Structures are given as C-alpha cells and as structure tokens.
C-alpha cells in the first residue's frame, strides 16, 4: 500500500458540517453516544458477570417490589369493609376507635334512640367477631360480620352465589374459599356452627383477615353477647351535618360516633404500626443490599477497566464521557435488575393471589413507577464510588508496558 493512498485516506477525516449549532449538537450527541457505547461494550463484554449481578440486583428489587405491594395491599384492604359500608357514621362502644382490633358492644335498646336523632336516615347494626378458623390443616384468620337481612354491612363484591344469607348460611371471601377449597353449596364448619356457603365474595379481606358474612343472630350467637350489637352504621339525611349527629350520639351514655373516614384512618394506623412498619424496615434493608451490590459490581468493573479509562483520558476523553460511561452502566444494570425483579415480583404476586391469598401484593402501575424511581435513584448513589475512582485514574498508566 502506498503512502500516497494512506495520506488520501487520512485527509477524508473532516467534520461533517460547518454550521456551529449543528457541530455543537452533533458533538454533544456523539459524546453521549460514545459514553453509552463504551458502557454497553463493558457490559456485554462480560456477560456472565453482569448477568449474575443483574440477577442479584433483581432479587433485591423483587423484594422491594413485592413487599411494597404487600404493604399497599395491607393498607388498602385494612379499610375495605369501612370503605364499602356505605355508612357516614359508625357508632361504637365508647372508648373503641377502630373496627379490626377491638370488640365493641352496644346494647340493642339504644338503636331506636340513635334512629330518632334528627338527620339520621337509617341505622343498620352489625356484629363482628375476630377468630381463627382451623381448616385444611391451616389456622386462617377470619373476621365474622353479622348483618341484618336486607340491611347494609354485608358483602359488596360477589364472585359467585348470593349476597344474602339466611340463618345457617354464609358468604365467604375468595381467599378463604381458595385456601380451603370451598365452593358455593359446600359446608363450612364455623366454630360450633355448620353452615352452607351461599356465596363467595371478592376483595373482602382485611389484610389477610378473611371476612365471613353471616346473619346477625348467628353472629350474636358466636359473639356470645346476647342481643347486643358491635357497631351501628348510620346513613344521614341529605343536608344533615355529621358533626351535629355525632354530638347527639355522643350524648347517649356508653356510645360514641366516629366518622367513617376517621374509623378507616384508625384501622389503617393500627395496621401500619403492627405490620407495615416492620415491612418497611425489610424493604429498606433490601434497598441497601441492592445499592451495595450495584456499588461492588460497578466499582470492581471500573477498577478492572482502569487501564481502558486511562487510555481514554490520555486520548482526550473529558470527565463527561468517563463519568457518563459509569452512570450508563449503572442505569443499564439497574434497569435490568428492575425488570427482572418486577417480573419475579409479578409472578410471585400472581402465585399468592391465585393459590395462597393469605398474603397478597398489589403491584399497581403507580407503585411500580414509584418503586422503580426510588430503586434507580438509590442505585445511582452506587455510581459515586466508581466515579471517585475514575477521577483518580492516572492517564500516565498508558506508558506502562
């Protein structure tokens, strides 16, 4: 090959445009592309290592996704009954401020007085009982709700069968039916009562407490508190002030009124204190483990490529390209981990929902987006370590044989 043709080839290397704006835009795009390209080649050059790293990050991300979904499910479902009760006010035994954790008892003789309060449209009474149901080798947590025939406080979302129950019948939650293998028409042994399943409701559990809807007299019999009821569900007339009705209820000895939203908030707070806070600690640990994995992987990869980065520095790569490459690797690794983690979490969520609904994970688009952003932001902290190393890479390394 002649030297003339060599020179000819070299002289072809010229900028593609003379317009300053075009040149600047192309240069910026080119540098970003260079950073991404180097990052991509570093990743795909060691596929096994990066695959294992992405899997490890995926496990951490899966834990975060799944547990945050569990947290969302616990929080949402803990107030499902209150939210769907249709009542504006709940009347409970004085001193009882929640639905799920306390056993309220109101004398039935007070109900006509409550009904007579100006502004009250209707009063429905319910009897609730917490318990454990030994079934199919499991002790499943249940929440029995006795409601008046034709009244409010019964099941609100039916999968199959009937929503109304006569004495000796029950509507059970889908989760309980799934775990116990029960269908409409099957028999259910509820404590000392043998019931027939009249219907199966959906979304009627309270953070794993499966709701069983029965007739009011049956619930009273289970509760063993005579003719008393647990709560009175009040609907108000249009224009009636809840505060005025509450004041009137509070004037009746032994009871007090709670706005539905307040009762829900109290239940939610109790659930958060009992279950959600420990869950969030585990989520935090998973997040930290994920960041540490990302930091170790990115740091070791950067250290191993120190020579390459020294070459780039010597040639004239600016900090933007160097750091951009590290950040790009971090983002790609994090996205791979996130997608893997989300896929496994979604699969786990489906498995639990379908076969073991005692524990569920609500992976909504909003939650997925929020968790992804948090995980990505946390993982970006991991890139500080490699960037610190890159700052210290000595371009003179290139002269070492």
């Amino acid at each position: 090959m002649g030297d003339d043709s060599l020179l000819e080839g070299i002289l072809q290397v010229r900028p593609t445009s003379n317009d300053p704006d075009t040149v600047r835009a192309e240069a910026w795009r080119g540098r970003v592309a260079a950073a991404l390209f180097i990052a991509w080649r570093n990743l795909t050059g060691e596929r096994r290592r990066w695959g294992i790293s992405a899997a490890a990050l995926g496990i951490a991300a899966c834990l975060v996704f799944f547990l945050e979904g569990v947290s969302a499910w616990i929080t949402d479902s803990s107030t499902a009954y209150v939210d769907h009760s249709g009542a504006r006010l709940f009347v409970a035994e004085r001193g009882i401020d929640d639905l799920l954790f306390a056993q309220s008892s109101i004398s039935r003789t007070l109900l006509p007085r409550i009904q007579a309060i100006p502004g009250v449209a209707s009063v429905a009474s319910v009897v609730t009982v917490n318990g454990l149901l030994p079934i199919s080798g499991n002790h499943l947590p249940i929440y029995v709700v006795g409601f008046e025939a034709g009244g409010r406080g019964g099941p609100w979302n039916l999968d199959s069968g009937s929503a109304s129950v006569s004495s000796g019948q029950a509507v059970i939650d889908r989760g309980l039916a799934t775990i116990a293998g029960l269908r409409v028409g099957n028999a259910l042994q509820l404590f000392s009562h043998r019931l027939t399943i009249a219907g199966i409701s959906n979304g009627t559990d309270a953070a794993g407490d499966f709701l069983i809807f029965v007739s009011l007299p049956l619930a009273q019999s289970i509760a063993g508190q005579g003719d008393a009821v647990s709560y009175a569900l009040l609907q108000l007339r249009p224009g009636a002030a809840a505060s005025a009705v509450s004041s009137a209820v509070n004037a009746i000895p032994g009871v007090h009124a709670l706005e539905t939203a307040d009762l829900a908030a109290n239940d939610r707070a109790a659930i958060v204190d009992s279950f959600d806070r420990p869950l969030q600690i585990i989520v935090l640990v998973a997040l930290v483990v994920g960041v540490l994995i990302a930091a170790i992987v990115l740091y070791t990869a950067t250290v191993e490529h120190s020579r390459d980065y020294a070459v780039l520095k010597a040639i004239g790569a600016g900090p933007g390209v160097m750091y951009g490459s590290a950040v790009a690797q971090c983002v790609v690794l994090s996205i791979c981990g996130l997608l893997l983690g989300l896929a496994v979490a979604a699969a786990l969520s489906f498995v639990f929902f379908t076969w073991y609904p005692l524990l569920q994970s609500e992976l909504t688009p909003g939650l997925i987006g929020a968790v992804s952003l948090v995980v990505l932001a946390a993982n970006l902290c991991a890139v500080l370590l490699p960037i610190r190393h890159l700052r210290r890479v000595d371009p003179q390394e290139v002269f070492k044989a």
Partner: protein
Amino acid sequence: MSVIVASGLTRVFGRGPNAVTAVRGAGIQVEAGEVLLLLGPSGSGKTTLVSMIGGLLTPTSGSVTIAGRTIDPADPSMPAFRLRTVGFVFQSFNLLASLTATENVAVPLRLRGVPRRHASPQAASMLEQLGLGDRLHLKPGVLSGGERQRVSLARALVGDPRVILADEPTASLDTATGREAIRLLTARARQGGLACVVVTHDTRLIEFADRVLHLEDGRILEGAETPVPV
C-alpha cells in the same frame, strides 16, 4: 514556527531527601513534518518527558506549547485540545479489549462528537490504508502484535492531529514488524506535516528520524545530536 516548543522542562517526583529528578531542564523544538527521535536508556526520563509534552503530567518547572498553545494539564479544556491535536502511539498498544479494530480507531472521532455513521467508515478507511482491511471487525485479542500496533497507529492518525507522540512504538514487536510500523508512522508524519516525537532506546530506529536527541539521567545531552544518515 515550531509545532512543539518545550523549554526548561523539569520534573521532580517526591520531596525532601527522597526526591528524584526524572527530567532536568529539557528543551526541544519540533517542526511540522519533522520526526524527532528521543534516544535514551531505560530510566533516562524519556517517558516522563513525553508525558509532559503530551499534557498528561504537570512539569515541576518549565513550559510546553503545542501549535502555539501552552500546555497545562490542569486546564479543563486540555483533554479536548489533546483530542484534536495530539495522537499517541504506545509500546503496549493500549487498545480497548472489548472493541473491534474499527471501533478502537473510531474512539477519538466518537469522543470528538463525530456520529457513528461517519466515524465508522472513516476508521475503516484508515485501517484499510494501513493494510488491515480484512481485520476490521476483529477484537485486539485475536490480532498479532504488528496488527495491533497498526490499529494503534490508525487510532493516533484518524483524528488528523498536529502532533504524534510515540512511546517505544517498536518495543513489543519483532524487528521486521517494528520497522514496518515505524516506517508507516514516519511516512505519515512527513506527508501530513505532523510534528512527530518518537521515544525509544532502540538505536536501529535512527535511520527513520530527521533528528536524534540523546537523553541520559533526565538531561538532554549537550552536543549529542546524532547525525541522521541520508
């Protein structure tokens, strides 16, 4: 006007009684199209000197200008200037193992912001000019030493620099391959009007140089300019 002007370059490593002076008061000038051979034994300060000229190492004292611009490694715009102006050729090639030959050569262009659609053909063209047309898509691991050095040379030349700094460019090559590499390098320097500094301990390269300076214990020896055979 000289493309490279270095004067009074001194570099001291360490402090106090442990201080070592690697280069002491070195001054050189290289014209466009000139090939200067810096000849010296191992430890004579050749690499330190070329590092300072290339803006990779800050001199303890003295100054360097390339194409009229003072070289200051602490200047944030220095990498961009080096990218446009200086091409490096290294003893150990320093190719990026995860990139193909074409991609390696395209790196300086990509760093300058040349889009891939333009950079890749330019890099391939350069490799073809250097006789590596059938090695474009191979990674450095499967290339011979001579091929790797030609890729390294292509990378140094592809950005159309004003200066080539070559550090022991033939040290990792056999005699014939080394001669071919230095022949290509010096031919390019002369034809492209590049100022070329070749640092070596190999006296057999003298015949490729326009001028030779001897370096010993960090000093350029006075009156030690070797006549170059015509």
